[in-house]
């Protein structure tokens, strides 16, 4: 059994949260409220050092002024007659304070200004990045030959190597070579047809959309299975912590 206070604390919180499986109880509520407070504080501290200090106080030269950072900033540059774009971070600081005014209902509307900067930058950035990474690159990966000739040729080499070990070529290697690209192209196209709502899903178009639904159902099933497995892995991790690190039953 561990003699570390931190391990006992972690075990207490693990059991406290897990006690919800029995029913909602005061121990769970206590741990939940600690989690809420700690999470909020955790991010407040992290963003204070990473964003406010590093990107605002350092770049403006305020940290340098107080002797907390060795490099000069925008304010020192300006006094030396050199333009520094980081001087504009003063405006970001003002917008940030405007954001905090949301706490006061009468003047809360002022928070719309900084919010509009956040929304505008997200919109401008995502419009390009999503178009590039999700649209163009996914289309590029879909426009491929129906059969992967390279992989088909590799099959004989894989087969020779496997037969030396007395094993057969795996099923997924055959599938990847002969049907992989076909399924990728067909599945993507039928899935896209399903998402096209400007035309009624009737006749050949409707049947194609229906095939698309089946592909989407497989995707949802696979994603669900994958998510369950990741949650299970977290659960195993917590059980391992309790029985190994805390109680020392498992080595």
């Amino acid at each position, binding site marked *: 059994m561990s003699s570390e206070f931190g391990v006992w604390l972690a075990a207490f919180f693990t059991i406290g949260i897990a006690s919800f499986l029995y029913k909602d109880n005061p121990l769970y509520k206590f741990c939940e409220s600690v989690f809420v*407070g700690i999470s909020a504080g955790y991010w407040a501290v992290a963003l204070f050092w990473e964003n406010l200090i590093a990107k605002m106080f350092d770049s403006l030269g305020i940290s340098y002024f107080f002797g907390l950072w060795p490099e000069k900033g925008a304010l020192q540059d300006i006094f030396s007659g050199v333009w520094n774009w980081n001087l504009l971070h003063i405006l970001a600081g003002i917008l940030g304070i405007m954001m905090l005014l949301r706490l006061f209902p009468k003047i809360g509307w002022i928070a719309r200004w900084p919010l509009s900067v956040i929304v505008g930058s997200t919109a401008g950035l995502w419009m390009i990045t999503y178009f590039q990474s999700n649209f163009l690159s996914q289309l590029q990966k879909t426009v491929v030959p129906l059969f992967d000739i390279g992989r088909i040729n590799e099959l004989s080499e894989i087969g020779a190597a496997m037969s030396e070990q007395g094993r057969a070529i*795996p099923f997924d290697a055959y599938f990847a070579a002969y049907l992989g690209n076909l399924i990728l192209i067909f599945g993507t196209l039928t899935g896209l047809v399903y998402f096209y709502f400007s035309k009624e899903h009737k006749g050949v178009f409707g049947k194609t959309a229906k095939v698309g639904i089946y592909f989407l159902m497989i995707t949802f099933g696979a994603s669900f299975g994958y998510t369950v497995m990741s949650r299970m892995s977290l659960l195993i991790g917590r059980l391992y912590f309790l029985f190994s690190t805390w109680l020392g039953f498992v080595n």
Partner: protein
Amino acid sequence: MRREIPLILTAIVGITFFIQFFVPHSPMRELSETFSDWYSIISAFAIWLGGLNLMKISFEKVYKKDKDWFFAVTTIVSFFLILIVGLFFSGGRQYLEQGSGYDWLYRNIYSPLSATMFALLAFFVASASYRAFRARNAQATVLLLAAFIVMAGRTPFGDWITIYLPEGWRLSNLSNVIMNYFNVAGQRAIMIGISLGIVSTSLRIILGIERSHLGGE
């Protein structure tokens, strides 16, 4: 003031990021880097706004002695505990280093709490899937089968129940085929749809047609 300036700000920032992609030179590059920093700085203030709002609500709860006010006290104490330790007693910028007070709180309180919270979802997902996965029609059956094959194929159990098949032809291989081809095809269709949606929504926001972020006016 309340609507026009936010709309203009959204358009300026959005258009700058858009143009910067096509003209990655001065002054667009510097301007976009500046706006990118602004984004980080304002996000930090937004997180602080969330924390302060949480404190405001919690203090109100304690002051009014609402139901379960004791748990609000716990929230306040834990918030200030990590805040004070992280800001003043963790070596400043080295707050993340192993052995700092902030790191201790992270490893022994934050991490077990969040991991157990998400681990609990395994039970709720299992009970939800029992209700949702009943094979009521062909599509639900396909979803059920795909989920079963992926889950079983990622554990030794999957290969154990198909042990009579030759090696390489067992459930783990079928799971790979579903994950790498059928799943990818569906994901790709979804991703292409999402990206088109994001492009059109972003355009609407930048042009001021979509104004829901300003309070739906």
